[in-house]
């Protein structure tokens, strides 16, 4: 009798342990507060090459029934979020024996599945806030900067003193030569004046 009872208890425990329904995959899709479930779709690609689809209820819960055994790919979708794909192994009893991220099988997920988004789906490039440096780097900024540089800085650029002297000298001798030439042609009137 005692033995019979213990067998019963054991059977009960086994029953508890395998309380998961056969062929059923359950889970929940989590979303941040600013997104709704209107586009949430759960797609299960079964190992037989078929596609099963389901949607979620108001709380984000979903369930697939009659899932065959094999390795399946679970693809959660929400238009405004990006979810990682999940690799599901369903054993011959129809129970999910392992759930892991498909791109890294070391990341095992708990069952029932709780699917968190990896990131928000940004379909548009974000304009950067106004930034003086980026404005300067833009064509307009470069044009303005270069012109200002040309206007303000170029005139103030100091010349090499020697070069400056040389230039002065050239200008001086040139002027003197021109004056001399003029004097040679124009007669002797200017020279006495200079002497005065």
């Amino acid at each position, binding site marked *: 009798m005692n033995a019979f009872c213990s067998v019963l208890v054991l059977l009960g425990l086994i029953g508890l342990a395998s309380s998961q329904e056969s062929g059923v995959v359950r889970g929940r899709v989590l979303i941040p507060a600013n997104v709704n479930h209107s586009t949430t779709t759960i797609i299960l690609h079964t190992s037989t090459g078929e596609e099963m689809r389901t*949607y979620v209820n108001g709380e984000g819960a979903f369930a697939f029934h*009659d899932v065959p055994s094999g390795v399946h790919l679970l693809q959660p979708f929400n238009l405004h979020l990006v979810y*990682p794909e999940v690799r599901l192994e369903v054993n011959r009893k129809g129970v999910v024996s392992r759930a892991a991220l498909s791109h890294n099988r070391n990341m095992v997920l708990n069952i029932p599945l709780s699917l968190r988004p990896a990131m928000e789906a940004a*379909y548009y490039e974000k304009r950067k806030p106004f930034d003086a440096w980026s404005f300067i780097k833009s064509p307009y900024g470069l*044009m303005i900067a270069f012109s200002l540089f040309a206007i303000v800085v170029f005139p103030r650029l100091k010349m090499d003193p020697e070069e400056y002297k040389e230039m002065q000298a050239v200008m001086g001798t040139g002027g003197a030569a021109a004056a001399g030439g003029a004097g040679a042609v124009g007669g002797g009137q200017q020279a006495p004046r200079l002497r005065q």
Partner: protein
Amino acid sequence: MHFQTLIILAVFALGAAARFEDQAGAYDWYKQHIGIVSSAQFHPSKPRVCVTTEQSVVGCLNLRDGSVAWRKQLQSAGAAPSVVYVGSAAALLTASGDYLRAFDLEGGLKWQRKLPVQAATVVAEVQGKESEKSNGAILAVQAGAVQVLDAADASQLSRPHQLKGLARDVVVVATGYLVAYNAGSKSVLLVSTSRFVAGDSAAEVVVEAPQDLSGVAAGGPAGFAALSADGSALCALRLGGAGGDAAFSCQRLDALVPELSAGPAAGHKLIPTSAGFVLQGGDAGAAVLAVSDGQPKLLRFYAAATGASAEASVGNNAAVGLVEGPAGDKLRLLVVSAASGEVLQEEDFPAAALRRAAHGASLQPRMVALGAFRKKDKSWGVRALVVFRGGLTALLQQGVVVWSRDESLATIRQTLFVDLPANGTALKGDAAAKADMNTRIRYQVLGAKVQLKLNTPAEAAELLELRGLLSDKNTPTRDVNGFRKLLLALTGTGSLVALHNGDGRVMWSRTFAADTMPTRLLQWRSYHDITHAPEVLLLREAHPGAYVAAINAHTGEELWQQPLTHGVSRVVSVPAPLIEGSAVQSVYLLVDHSPAPGAVPAVNLLPDSAASQAHFASSQRSPYLFWEGVQPGTLQGFSLEAGPAGAGDAGITARLAWQVALPDTVLAFATRDPTEPIQSSVKVLSDRTIKYKYLNPNLLFVATGLANGAALDGDDSTAVIAHLVDTVTGRVLYSQSHPGARGPVTAVLSENLVLYHFRDVESGRFVACSMELYDATPGRDFSVLDYLFNPNSTQPVSSLTPTPIEVVSQSYFSRIVPTGLAVTRTEQGITAKQMLVITNTDQVYALDRRWVDPRRPKKQKLTQDEMEDGLTPYQDTLPFSPLSFATLDKQVLGLSGLAVEPTRLESTCLLFVHGVDLFYTRLAPAKGFDSLEDDFNYALLVAALVALSVGAVVMNYMTKQAQLAWKWK
């Protein structure tokens, strides 16, 4: 959680054609549809109407403006679902394909169950067990299998039954009974539903009808009724009472309803009411019938009624809504008591607005739904959702058309881009009003603010509005860049609609009756001079009534129509069009092929003129036909030979040229578009060596493998094999195998690149494989001098003497699950291509070709040469970035096809995506390298120039002053 790796992966991706948020709507538009409504139910508490459609969509529309509150697609292949509203559980129950689903009225899915087979399903609410009256019990009948489910949680209320006798054409649920029969037969099977609910074995009763019954039948509280197969009599079956006394009685229609003209049964409709039936005879009026003692009796006949609704309760009355008209400018809604047949309420609605919205399609109601509401003065008012045959859906209430939606565009089958007229004479569109200078300046200032992020949200909205106002994208004439086009769409409702690609408005529309509905839309004739309108061809293959007709693409006018005497099973385009003066005439081969083994296809030329025959006979490269043979995995190729010139109707003969048996099932085909522009037939590598692309126009890609849905064997020995076949000789040029892979396979062949997707069984992930094909003929040199001056230096490539192929191939995991593949197309083919991946989530992903370049080196540090080649380091997964979605943040529900059209600017092409929704955008695969953006901000440029000039003047003055001061020193 550990999703960082994924984020890194995603961030790595670069969006080539990414847009800024303030550019949304500048080059794109999106129209949300729901499909042709097949059933409707007004929401019990909210101002909404919940509908199911023939495109397999279930959803709710707002009653105020007709916008979509929520919607869900039930299956990808469109078919109207069987639907029942369960009031006690506040659930919409749909049966579509092999799924039974229950939605709450907010769009959440309560539960879903797989049905045993994929077949038509009847769902109905039946009375539950006595103890569980609060929950509705659901009866789902499919191919003889009956399930009784709880509407709240889909738990089985009793064990499933299998009744072979129920597997009939017509299954109708009448109160307490299931009635099943085959259309055109007398034997009717009756099963009591209470037995199913109780879980007892069901008793089947077979009743013989006096006449053969048609499929037009209805069951309700008053019993079951059906029209006889010849449409001359109405047969009613009294149900209830003791099991044995079910008996048919047939009454001649001309005796019952003398006014209703006898016609084929198919034109009639029977609607059950609480007191009897409404018999609606197409447009010939509706009879309100009461049934007493199993005998139908006419209450009243409404001769002008063209549509009738199901019963609804208006106050204390059970009533049906009848639509009369449109007569003159009026559409009349009558609310008729089901018990007495008398008119309870009557309202008139203006038909002119509906006519405008229907674009000339007929205003015959195809479905009417009646709903009642309490007015402010506590009296009862009614509203009606009317679906017209052309797809127009309108809400009528209190004498006004509250809103209307043209749903015919949700059924687009084929599209074609054509040029708009060169001047505005042919099309009278409402072009944007010319804006004044102040508006333009304001637009520029706002644009500058937005670009510098100094704007308020209101200013951003104003910018969008002004952009629409100032843009010339909606002008109904063609532009220099070829951006503005007319988009012709052939819909499933039998209309040819011309949309302007600027905003998707309808320019003209032409509707065909059901028996002349065209099935194909083809290019026909275009002109180089601007005075002629392009012509398109409509083709109807179905016999009787097969025809071809040419349509003026600018006005929709039919130019000619010609009946077809032969069958058409496929249409093949002759690669080179026929040039006739300034006209470019497309030439087609109409192939009539029966699937019987050994059958030789009959080929007819269209147009069948001497000129086109000569053109076909002299064309350099005659097309070869191929298709899958009778046995799966067999390919057949046919060569075509033109008859002797001048022989008149000698026509073209097809001859079986080759036959190839491939292992396994064919999973996908891909061929090159023969009109695809190819800029260069060589690829120059970084070391200045040259590779010749393999550009065989007769190349066919075939993927074979385990059929979809077939279970794997125990040893998992499945493989996808990719074959390259020459369609002239049937020779398999190359094949490669992917062990451990299976379908579904999608493939595209563009230039010398093949891209195909399949599924890896072990990891469960999808894999993209790209193959680049090069001509590996040894000793082939390239000399610029030869190329320029020696016309004989080119080497002809023949399928009959095949050249060796060099194939470079590489595989990547893909996060995108494709259902179709296409490729962008530009005028000259210079611009880098993007692969357009149609995803299973109804989006289009634009994947740069460089990501699937099979030469991507497997190392992180690239050499100078590799960088010069534009290669990126290999990664096992293709980049995934939401920025690359061509459909932006839109989902094109039920995506069924896309059309790409090049513009005259090399950088840009146009993309139109259609399904239940429509989406149009402009794509620049390599960004707009040859034009300034449309929203280029001139204000900033002008501001910069003005600032420069002012600065120059000021500085000039200051310099002078400074020089003066210096001179005085």
